[in-house]
């Protein structure tokens, strides 16, 4: 009870602080207070601000471009019988089509060329494509959701939507919301770290807004951990400057800032001094983080030799684990190239090779270290792909257009039920269906939620929930409105939670 009251009080202070900063004060004075707040709150609240958190941290493996659920997770054997035939009108049921296939004369059904195998999980099993042999070995840990859906039908709006809750730029990203809500668990590393994994088909753009802070103060934006140049922008001292030189500089800076503070008594000057100190610490904590020298050979057996090459997805996954170990709350890896309009066989094969072993290794590694239970891992893209072919339909190769009405994602750890699947789609993987195969047409609705479905707002609400945040209560006032990540929507999908 006392904790609850204390939490409430802290929440209040916190909202006042942050709310004010957005609109009122906004000087570094506030930033100083907030930084202190971040540390104190983060540590005291054990990750949760509205209820006890199940997950202390989240690792989000983002597959940019829209992976084909039909070739990876959503097994549709009946499509074989319809090979090459036009997708029935009643299946399409008014769904709009992108400008890329809307002029196509037919929408020929295109079954997956890949073999699916039924893998054991903790329930009825789950079908996994041959493209993901490693991931297939961790299905007992995964909750595979077949019924994620969105309204957006093109990349830019769709990825902006799933990452910020709005199709139009300007809102804070999921990561920024978490940083704002939860602060940091450590004093040596940023609280929100973003990595870009390399891909052979780096189609589709990413945008700063996907990890940006939108209308929130920019301290909540994701910090890029890069594989080229300085791992964190401007981390390393200029050539010819040693760590001792830097220490002397920071000391001089402190003395100068203290003199300034003496004259003007502005508390934010003191906050700046603390930031310089943290920067100095980061200069040793980040290299320590990036140094894989102490990782035993077994690590690379697990993640694959790719993990030794900076910038690969496997290396990013290994970094993610190391970041998680060091108290970073919020880690996101973006992997591009899933936009298979024409050459799905060629591209998805490579894409899966990129990500398969690393993702599976991350799950195993976290599990082994006892960290999976409080680390929420999410895998998915911004939408799915069509069951009809875009362009030429061949037995060995084909293309698929964007599909918003259903797509597959998976979650693991962090209090999500392991080894289950959730929701089902029709025989074409086109519509979300009930257990009997009848079409459900879920809409994002603030009052009503359709069981068995997970709109992207529901996904975000559920992620926040696992981190101890009520998505309806984490608000930020801007332009007179209390904004939320989930806008006015979102339902926590409790069915998949332990």
């Amino acid at each position, binding site marked *: 009870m006392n904790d609850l009251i204390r939490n409430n009080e802290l929440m209040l202070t916190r909202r006042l602080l942050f709310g004010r900063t957005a609109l009122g*004060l906004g000087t570094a004075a506030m930033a100083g207070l907030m930084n202190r707040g971040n540390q104190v709150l983060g540590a005291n609240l054990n990750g949760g601000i509205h209820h006890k958190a199940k997950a202390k941290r989240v690792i989000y493996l983002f597959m940019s471009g829209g992976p084909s659920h039909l070739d990876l997770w959503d097994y549709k054997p009946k499509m074989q019988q319809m090979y090459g035939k036009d997708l029935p009108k009643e299946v399409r049921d008014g769904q709009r089509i992108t400008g890329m296939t809307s002029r196509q004369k037919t929408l020929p059904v295109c079954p997956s060329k890949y073999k699916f195998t039924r893998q054991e999980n903790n329930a009825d099993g789950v079908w996994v494509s041959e493209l993901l042999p490693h991931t297939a070995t961790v299905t007992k840990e995964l909750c595979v959701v077949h019924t994620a859906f969105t309204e957006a039908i093109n990349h830019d709006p769709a990825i902006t939507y799933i990452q910020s809750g709005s199709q139009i*730029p300007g809102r804070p990203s999921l990561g920024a919301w978490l940083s704002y809500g939860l602060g940091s668990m450590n004093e040596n590393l940023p609280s929100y770290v973003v990595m870009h994994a390399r891909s052979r088909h780096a189609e589709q753009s990413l945008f700063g807004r996907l990890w*940006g802070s939108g209308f929130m103060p920019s*301290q909540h934006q994701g910090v890029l951990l890069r594989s080229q140049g300085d791992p964190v922008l401007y981390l390393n001292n200029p050539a010819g400057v040693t760590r001792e030189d830097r220490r002397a500089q920071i000391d001089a800076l402190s*003395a100068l800032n203290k003199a*300034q503070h003496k004259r003007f008594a502005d508390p934010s000057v003191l906050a700046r001094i603390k930031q310089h100190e943290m920067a100095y610490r980061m200069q040793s904590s980040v290299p320590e983080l990036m140094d894989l020298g102490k990782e035993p050979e077994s690590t690379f057996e697990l993640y694959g030799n790719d993990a030794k090459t900076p910038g690969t997805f496997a290396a990013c996954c290994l970094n993610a684990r190391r970041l998680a170990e060091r108290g970073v709350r919020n880690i996101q890896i973006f992997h591009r190239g899933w936009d298979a309009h024409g050459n799905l066989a060629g591209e998805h094969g490579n894409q899966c090779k990129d990500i398969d072993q690393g993702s599976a290794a991350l799950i195993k590694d976290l599990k082994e270290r006892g960290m999976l239970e409080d680390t929420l891992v999410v895998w998915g893209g911004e939408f799915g792909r069509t069951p009809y072919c875009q362009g030429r339909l061949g037995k060995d190769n084909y293309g698929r257009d964007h599909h918003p009405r259903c797509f597959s994602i998976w979650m693991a750890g962090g209090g999500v039920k392991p080894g289950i699947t959730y929701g089902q789609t029709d025989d074409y993987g086109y519509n979300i269906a009930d257990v009997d195969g009848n079409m459900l047409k879920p809409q994002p609705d603030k009052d009503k939620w359709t069981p068995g479905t997970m709109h992207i707002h529901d996904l975000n609400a559920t992620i926040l929930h696992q981190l101890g945040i009520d998505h309806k209560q984490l608000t930020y006032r801007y332009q007179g409105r209390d904004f939320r990540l989930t806008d006015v929507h979102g339902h926590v999908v409790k069915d998949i939670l332990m």
Partner: protein
Amino acid sequence: MKKKFITIIFFTWLTGNLLAEEKVDFSREVLPVLSNKCFVCHGPDTKKKDLVRLDSFLGATRDLDGYKAIDPNKLEESEILVRINDKEDPMPPHKAEKKLTASERDILTRWIKQGGTYATHWAFVPPVKKKTNSTGNPIDFFIAKKIKAKGIDMNPKADRRILARRAALTLTGFPPDPKQLKTYIEDKRPDAYERLVDQLLDSPSFGEHQARYWLDAIRYGDTHGLHLDNRRGIYPFRDWVVRSINENLPLDQFITWQLGGDLLPDPTLAQKIATGFIRMNPSTAEGGAIPAEFQAKNNFDRVETLGTALLGMSLICARCHTHKYDPILQTEYYQLMAFFNNTSESSMDGNKYEYSPNIKAPADQASWNEWNAIKEIRKGVLKDAVKIQTDAFNRWQKASEEERFKLLTNPDQKVVELQKRAAIVAKSIAESEKRFTTTLVAKELSKPRETRLLNRGEYNLPVGEPLLPDTPKAMGSFPKDAPRNRLGLAHWLTAREHPLVARVLTNRIWQRTFGEGLVRTPADFGLQGEQPTHPELLDWLAVELQDNKWNLKKMMRLMVTSRTFQQSSARDSKQVDPENRLWARGPSYRLDAEVLRDIGLWASQLLDPTMGGEGVKPYQPAGLWKALMHPGSNTKNYVPDKGVRQYRRSLYVYWKRTSPHPMMTLFDAPSRETSCVRRSRTATPTQSLALLNERQRVEMGRMLGQRLLKESKDSENIINKLFTLLASRAPEEAEKEACIKLFQQLQKRYDKNPNDAETFLSIGESARDKELDAASLAAWSQVALTVLASDIAMWVY
């Protein structure tokens, strides 16, 4: 716990009683409570017919089967009073996310007891000037009045040097030049400060610095902003903004040209360029994008930017439903959109630089000047032509037949001369125009596009009849004689009776002068926004702006010459007013990203003063764009500029909207994907890293160190000079000590490790003076870099 509870009750009872007689101000006290706590269900967008509406007197006094929310005849029995105090079945209900606080309950209670009457929200009532009863600066009158009422004093005047620095940074974005500073300090005339201010207002840097705020507000960028985020031809618009601010184009015209310059009779080139404003929305050409969807989205963006930048509210809520708090109907949103829905550009940008319609415009300020100069010469030629041709004609008239024939065979030399001059002018114009570049502009379709209300803001769900362009009723009526197009919209915005535009602009001018606005929520003047700290002052200034024909320089002059601006910014030890809402001390805030960079370039004499032209690309860590961009994008490779273009003012740094320069975004610059009228000011460790390690900053430190060493020989003078440049004053003992200590330590180290000095001194493109001792230079460079990174240089105070 129990004790605390009792205290609260006692306090409530006490304040309740004490204040019972005090007249409650509906607009400033009651309406915010109703808006924040009640309107979510009982506001303008209430759909359920049986629910009481509390956004008007009429609604609140409606008979609800024998009782009324407000009963004017039996005030004490008003249902509001009953329900807000009902423990069992309270309002807002138990499950509501926002409940009433004790003081809010008290405000509502007093309001009902005092008659429960309504008034219009302050921001929707046109401002009027109150008499100031003072001969001094009216700003000080309003500020002093409130301060005195609180029983405190204004801070003393700031030190003259500090003040000169503050004024220079506020107006031009640079500290005062040491010479300028010296002249000012030695100027003992009573109006020395005013003279300095006038110099600053006349500096071309003024326009560059002030333009930035407008470019944030209207989301200026050099790329399309979505998907491929390709290059876009629009920088002549940016240069036009700088020019018009420097020429002090009245703000009403500044707005009118941007909204409807193309619709003015016989528009000038500048008026056409100004319509680039209409084209500033982020755009896409993504393969699968649906044109109708982006026609709607582009226009949403225009309406909401207009709202944020000029109306002080984004209107975004009304896109999907009638506004919950502010009296803006959803229909009105789409009526406003109808003004914009008639421009001729395609809804998709084709990933093209020339995304038409476009025109050719001068490519930088120099070519503007050149073109204008030629135009002036042409005027002269035309003027001479009148005289010469008239003379010739007169001669002809008077001449005999014989003489006329002679005139024909022997043309007038003056006419021949004139023709030659005209030919030269024509050639110069043609040549000048050959160097013109593309800039996107607005053009009207001859046949208007239909605009309908879009249900839930969905492009594919239009409902109802086509809407004619119109403006929200709550913000005043549309001028009778104005056309129903963008030009008419501009007339409405700049009309004397408009309640918002002058206030919103004045508030932001105040914000960039004093660090914060009089209204602390510059993007929300609506019911949910904050009240102005000094309502009468805001109104006085807003009317003053209009009285002075929307003269920006005059307004800024009034502000910076006020006693309020000139106060010391030191805080009192008790921190009585941490947010400076009383304005009893001078402004103090961290400078913007651009200014931080510009100061370094300026102090190190690296700055290239060239004005205007295509965005420049200073060093940026390799691969930043490539890691994000589609292979088909023409902005996937960042190729840093060479030579002087490295060192242009930050206003000109190339603005790629999906990935602006990290030295901008790290220090809180917005992405320019959406309107931003107030930047946050954060302090982060990644900023600290950038301040001391970024290549250009290191180079600035190095060149500043070099300048210092070349201009002075001994440490004392070097540090003095450094502080004069960056702090406009001599260093204090502690500061001097810190600098000397750092210098000595580093010099010793570099003496021992000459290679380190050499490598350090080779960072950046600019040439190093090999005559200077490497160890001393490297050490002084680090000192310069350190002082540049200190709050002494990074703040206005």
